[in-house]
């Protein structure tokens, strides 16, 4: 599955979901196709889920809310390991990704 626009790309390889580019869509409705891609990965009952954000240069607050919503859905699968990978070169990730761990203790956050 993939959503590619040039400005941003989101795709999955098995249970690894990759995000790339600049995401500043206008709100919950605009983010719905991306949320659906993430939910489809979850629907295949993977053994683990990885969110790879290391190429996502910018994410507005509506997008951060999308990650938060999905993290809350992941709590319904308490035994499934969840890894969120960010980059130290992209400042928003060190600032905002720790909030995901506050929502779900099972999230392993790795900033590379």
């Amino acid at each position, binding site marked *: 599955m993939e959503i590619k626009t040039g400005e941003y790309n989101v795709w999955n390889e098995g249970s690894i979901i990759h995000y790339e580019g600049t995401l500043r869509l206008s709100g919950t409705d605009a983010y719905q196709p991306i949320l659906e891609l993430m939910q489809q990965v979850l629907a295949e009952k993977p053994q683990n889920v990885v969110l790879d954000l290391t190429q996502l240069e*910018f994410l*507005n607050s509506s997008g951060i809310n999308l990650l938060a*919503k999905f993290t809350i859905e992941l709590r319904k699968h308490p035994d499934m390991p969840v890894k969120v990978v960010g980059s130290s070169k992209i400042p*928003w990730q060190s600032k905002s990704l720790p909030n995901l761990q506050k929502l779900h203790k099972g999230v392993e956050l790795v900033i590379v």
Partner: protein
Amino acid sequence: MKTFGDTARINGSGAFAMRITISDGPLGVSWQHASETCEFLGDVFALHHAKQGADYNEARHSIVYLVNELLENAIKFRVPGTISVDCSLHQGNFELTVSNDTEAEVASRFQALIEEITSRDPGELLIERIEANAADENSSGSGLGLLTLMNDYGARLGWDFRSSATGGAVMLSTHAALTLN
């Protein structure tokens, strides 16, 4: 005039400053104006800040994020008219004011939201509102952007509302200040 939060301005006439006016013209004001304006201001102000030996990447990102969030709100909730964006930087203190007209009813709902999000610790409120938002499919997540700015970026925010020159609208100015490293 009604004032909320921290509207104090420190930067004076010695600051590096710029005003951008986004006018309604034949092409109209669109979502794209938020990203173009914030990228431009991020470049200009971070370059200026980096001349003092500061971290360009970190400063640029914080400025872009802040300007984008406030402009997204202005574009979403404005009535047709001009949006003005005033920025200044002095010794690492970045100040921003975004002004636009909005409907009186929208302004009054926004005032209630401001009272709520400035009443307690922004970190706790951010998590609470994310939880409430996830539980309600119809929720738009309003306030999350402002709470993210306060909690994750340490932004100091303030608002003032005054009668607009253009009829029944209210002129809203959102003030923000950030300490850049």
